[in-house]
């Protein structure tokens, strides 16, 4: 993180032509990760900085997404109910290439076609992580990663923000002696940089918070508002104006 170029909040607003309101809204919607907000004291008082490349790329993406209203609606549904049981249609995941049967089996997710054919955001995240791991991991390692990730989320209860700042690592170690050699695989979910003994080899790493963001953005990009079966919450919100 140290060698990344930082940009102050007011410079971001000016460069990207957005308002404070938009930036705070996107932050609330979970479209901009908390860890990108870097608070520093400067001679003009407390200021917030961002990793420049990341924030610029992210804001471009958000701005390109079919107008702010649609985005808000979608983000509402996608991140607000991160904890709850948001359901994502399998069809969409397949369309995005997030899902295939083999991976589903490894993750222990069974497609029940006769039901409404949906799964939770949490499972979508799990699938996305596993998909990334598959480039280097073996089947049993994928299953292990799936269980580890599930355990981590379970332990925190209902909140996916538990993944914030954390990275999932796949490590392997070769053991040999007496003419027999074996390899053990280890899955670790940790905050920040991981220091391990030199014999342990890091095979792959996945930034979990980044992945969650990715899943949300990709889903937002491919969902149309009418696909999202959460009509009630939106109506309630519209009625809020004359609430007092």
């Amino acid at each position, binding site marked *: 993180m140290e060698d990344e170029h930082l940009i102050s*909040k*007011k410079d971001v607003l*000016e460069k990207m032509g957005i*308002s*404070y*309101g*938009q930036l*705070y*809204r996107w*932050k*609330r919607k979970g479209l901009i990760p908390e860890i990108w907000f870097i608070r520093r004291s400067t001679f*003009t*008082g*407390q200021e917030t900085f961002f990793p420049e490349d990341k924030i610029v790329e992210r804001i471009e993406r958000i701005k390109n997404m079919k107008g702010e209203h649609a985005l808000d609606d979608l983000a509402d549904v996608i991140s*607000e109910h991160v*904890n*709850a049981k948001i359901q994502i249609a399998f069809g969409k995941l397949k369309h995005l290439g997030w899902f295939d049967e083999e991976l589903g089996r490894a993750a222990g997710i069974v497609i029940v076609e006769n039901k409404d054919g949906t799964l939770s955001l949490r499972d979508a995240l799990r699938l996305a992580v596993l998909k990334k791991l598959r480039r280097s991991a073996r089947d049993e390692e994928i299953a292990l990663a799936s269980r580890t990730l599930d355990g981590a989320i379970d332990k925190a*209860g*209902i*909140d996916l923000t538990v993944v914030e700042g954390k990275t999932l690592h796949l490590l392997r170690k070769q053991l040999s002696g007496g003419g027999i050699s074996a390899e053990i695989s280890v899955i670790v979910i940790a905050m920040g940089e991981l220091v391990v003994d030199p014999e342990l080899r890091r095979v792959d790493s996945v930034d979990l918070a980044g992945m969650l963001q990715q899943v949300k953005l990709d889903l937002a990009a491919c969902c149309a508002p009418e696909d999202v079966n959460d009509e009630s*919450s939106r109506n*309630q*919100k519209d009625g*809020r104006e004359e*609430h*007092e």
Partner: protein
Amino acid sequence: MSEERKSVSMSGAGVIAGGSYSRVSISGAGKINGDLYAEELKMSGAGKVDGHCEVVQLTVSGTGKFSKAVIADEMKVSGVAKVDGLVKVKELKCSGTFRAGENISSEYVKVSGQLHVGGDLEAEIFRASGGFDIRGLLTADRIEIHPGGRCRAQEIGGAKIDVRRYGSRDHAGVLGSLMRALSSAWGGEVEADLIEGDEIYLENTSADVVRGKQIQIGPNCKIKLIEYSESLTVHDDSDVEKQTKI
């Protein structure tokens, strides 16, 4: 969740196990051991949920304690409530005292009592006429504060931020002047390290830094630094150490 769910009413002292219920009402002293899922939870006596609490309607008019997260559509606190975990609701109305150990997120928040938040408070609309103490960030699209006590947040950020004493504009008449007299007697004011927004109007506010597009500083403010990009006006009865156009 099963199809048939029971309703429970505890009017003496009682303990029930967590699980799915239709309605749970506690008017004596009651405790729920484990995660609770219900349509309605009413605490008018002394109640405690030892686990997650996921309900549609939550009303605390007595005392209510929650050891983990609270998820609800509507949460009303007119008594005393304490939540140790996260609070995720659609609507939060607090006319009593509410203490949240971690973050609160709600579409709509109205505070006329006292609100304490250990983390951040996120909302679309935040209205306060009572007092609050938010350790982290207070963010909402619209923030309207009529300080009725000490209102403190580390940072306040949103599109439109409006802090004014009762009766300073839109509360005319007897009630307005009464509220004005009371609020100045109580010395309600807003304190923050940083306030950021597109349209900002402030009265009775102390802040280190205020940043925004259009900033209007009304009476009784103490601000160390203002950075604005479009317009700025400062009332004579306010103290601004430094201002810059950016």
